[in-house]
């Protein structure tokens, strides 16, 4: 093979090696914060070679949803769900966002951020309650025995509009 071919082949194989090691969760072989680790992560992030492919794996958890209870100045309440749109692509992305409510450290910040967005969308709202709910799906055998999917609440926070601003 010509030298040029060897060079490009080596680059291609290195790229695939990054992809393979990342997919195998082996990024941790490099100590964090080292130059090599940063270069690896940067390269992987830009090229898409650092992905982990755990679609629907290893387990599929309960379905998540967020209900916004909006209260206006007159005390009138309404429940809003953003992911019930006809646009499936939009809904899928919303549910992905809501998935971060399952991360303990992110939950409070996520609720604040979502409530803030809802205040910007509903000017008449004075209070918004963010309720995170999960839908538990019974195993097939339990379903055959009469059990049905059920919703349960996991987290709730209420936010009042800051009238000073």
């Amino acid at each position: 093979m010509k030298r040029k071919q060897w060079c490009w082949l080596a680059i291609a194989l290195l790229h695939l090696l990054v992809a393979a090691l990342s997919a195998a969760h082996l990024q941790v072989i490099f100590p964090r914060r080292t130059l090599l680790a940063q270069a690896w992560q940067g390269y992987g992030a830009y090229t898409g070679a650092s992905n982990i492919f755990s679609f629907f794996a290893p387990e599929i958890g309960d379905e998540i949803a967020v209900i916004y209870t909006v209260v206006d100045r007159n005390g009138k309440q309404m429940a809003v769900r953003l992911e019930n749109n006809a646009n499936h692509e939009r809904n899928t992305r919303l549910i992905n966002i809501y998935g971060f409510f399952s991360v303990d450290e992110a939950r409070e910040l996520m609720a604040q951020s979502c409530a803030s967005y809802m205040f910007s969308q509903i000017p008449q709202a004075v209070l918004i309650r963010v309720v995170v709910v999960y839908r538990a799906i019974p195993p097939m055998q339990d379903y055959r025995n009469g059990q049905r999917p059920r919703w349960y609440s996991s987290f709730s926070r209420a936010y009042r509009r800051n009238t000073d601003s």
Partner: protein
Amino acid sequence: MNSINTRISAGLHHFFFTPSSGRPLAFLRIGAALLALLQIVLLNSSLLMLYGRHGLVQWLLSEGIISDYALRLGWIAGWLARWNISPDQAVMIVAGIYTVALIALIFGLFTRGAALLSWLIHFMLTSSGFMSSYGVETFTHIALFYCVVMPVGHHFSLDARRHGRPLFSEWYTLSVRVLQLHLCIVYMATGLEKAAGTQWWTGEAIWRALMQMQFGQFDMSWLAHYTWLARLICWGTMLLEISYPLFMFHPRLRRFGYPAIIMLHLGIGLFMGLGLFAAMMITLNTAAFWPFKERETAIAKSHLAGIH
């Protein structure tokens, strides 16, 4: 020893550098860019909610988590602010440039530049809005990166009309091989990840997925009475994914492997509503493994002629 080295070198050359058609790469370019365009059109009315500074996940939160080196919308918004352009307007401008770049990429006009712009903007959007990203973004990013570095504009493009390109090239083969091997990594990894969970062995995984309101397109509750079918689907999926290299590289098995993978993704699109994801995977698989006549012919001819 020299003989072994020569044989390895010849084998590598034959696998990676036997000249083949560039049409699969054109298919990759057009398919990936079309799907990315469709995606941005579908999300047009939700762009600010998903990617805006004060969207559902504010930049303060999302951009605070991503790596320091990741491109982000906040940088562009900060730069455009000097012309009194608001962050929301900046997002719309970026989306507009992305749309134009994707259209140019589809037609193969200034292909490399259009691919570069599409790839960088896509990365920017998915960095700032990483919490909303799912599989389709992952593979769009990979496909757009390959559009930047691979000769995807040599066929079915306005650039090719202007400049003229070879019908066969060793660089087309290397590019397609990289795509093929990357897909092998993807499918094997996802298959092994599934095999690590119990739900994929008991059949509960497909049951739980189809019973979720976000994915369920039809009432699939009847599946609870056919546990064997749920198990068969799960086992079949794992077998197909883990054995993907075998199914796709073995010429005889590919006759079954390729349609089976396409059926798998059509099933995901139809029964789980993940149409864009399914279409992107079908595009990647087709670009990588569809037996484009020219490719096969060229490989066969060079093999017969003993070109190494």
